[in-house]
């Protein structure tokens, strides 16, 4: 059956109206039903990330005081804006000012009040994984031409090898 309003699309909603005591039936398509304020289905699940990206889009992420890229992973504000994802934990420092504002918008707050965390003492950590991490950081530092940092990392690596 065609929609009784637009006569173009298939009617999917059967609207029963009571006007001055008389019952009338109206068959409408989804669009016309929506225009008359009738909910036709359960709304699709709310996407947090959609909201989030919208918030990112609306806001320029180059707030004064922010770096244009993260020195650790090389992610730029542009990467962040297009993917909605930060590249590493250091990005939180690099883009701190704009992130604080964004977190406030997303969560209504920008300060963590939950569990605190104390990292394990270095002697408890596996030496092998520390060496692996240092090597990764060294490679990134060289690629980003951060030679001072690279020299420091190389010295730290030597103490293990």
């Amino acid at each position, binding site marked *: 059956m065609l929609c009784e309003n637009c006569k173009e699309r298939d009617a999917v909603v059967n609207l029963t109206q009571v006007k001055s005591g008389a019952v009338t039936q109206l068959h409408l398509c989804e669009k016309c039903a929506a225009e008359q304020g009738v*909910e036709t289905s*359960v*709304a*699709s*699940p*709310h*996407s*947090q*990330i959609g909201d*989030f990206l919208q918030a990112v889009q609306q806001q320029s992420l180059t707030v004064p005081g922010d770096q244009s890229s993260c020195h*650790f*992973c090389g*992610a730029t504000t542009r990467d962040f804006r297009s*993917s*909605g*994802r*930060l*590249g*590493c*934990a250091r990005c*939180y420092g690099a883009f701190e000012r704009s*992130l604080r504002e*964004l*977190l406030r918008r*997303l*969560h*209504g*707050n*920008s*300060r*963590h*009040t*939950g*569990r605190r*965390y104390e*990292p*394990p003492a270095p002697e*408890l*950590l*596996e030496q092998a*994984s520390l060496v*692996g*991490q240092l090597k*990764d*950081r060294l490679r990134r530092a060289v690629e980003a031409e951060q030679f001072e940092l690279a020299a420091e990392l190389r010295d730290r690596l030597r103490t293990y090898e």
Partner: protein
Amino acid sequence: MDLSLLPDGGVGWLDASGDHADIVLSTRIRLARNVEGYAFTPRARDGERLRVLSQIREAAQHLRPLQAGMLLRVDELPTLDRQLLHERHLVSKELAGFDGPAGVRTGAAVLLGDDVSLMVNEEDHLRLQALRSGFELPAAWRAVEQLDQDLGGRVPYAFHGEFGFLTACPTNTGTGMRASVLIHLPGLVLTKEIQKVLAGLQQIGLTYRGLYGEGSEVVGNFFQISNQTTLGRSEEELIDHLAQVVRRVIEKEEEARRVLLRDAGTTVEDKLWRAYGTLRYARSLTFEEAMNYLSGVRLAVGLKLISGLSVYTLNKLLIFCQPAHLAYLEGRALTESEVHVARARYVRQALSSEAGTAG
């Protein structure tokens, strides 16, 4: 893959044992964590992800709930096995490689323990999870919190004094916690009260999704209600808030069911028996049809209109009538129409072994 080797077959959370199990299918709490010193998973290189995995593997050997567990390298599994794990709610769509064009990532893995599990190299390096049958937020929280403390004592997490636990997506920053309750609300849908309830949830910092989490459709009147914000409130506050609201939603659902029986008893009874009849005798069923009729039968059992059917059987049907499960049962790949036929056969067999009778 032989899923019977998993603890509980990985479906212990379906056994209808917890609180309010007729309305609440399951409770899940997950914590997002990242290992200090590496780029987050989406930006990390293969080598980094493999090192994260080996670090977690090493730590897991010392953690009681994971010691006797099973490690599955998701990146080494064929598509059907990955789909099976996803259908069983053991891995997310992203970890299984079905979300986006990137496919499955090198180093993607899941550690399935006694009553907790751990996804490695999901959007965050670690997603710690506890999944329970019924409405069991405190039990799920105790299990996941203990795992978090033990693991965090062996592996350094990325943590910031002001922002809390650091995550790839800022929507998870802070506690990194998502607590969610998978709830069946046919009464509120039938009485058209559901939109009001869902709009109310969003006004108070909660959100809802479908059966398979973010981005999934609401099918069969199953809604996953969870906290939307993760920063600025403690884990306990977030859980208490969710618990209070879910209790209120359960009351509303019960009230709606009473109204349905009172005002439209015969119509409702007819509709639900027809749903049961279709499931008992249909020769081909789409997933949506199966979900909607199962929702009706579940409601009929809740209203005591049908007796002799266990909630556990109905829960199991939700999982086992999905495509990868059916292909696995049939022992071969199935075309779409073969899936519909196999589904109808599976549902018929499951229901005939527990014949429902008028309550």
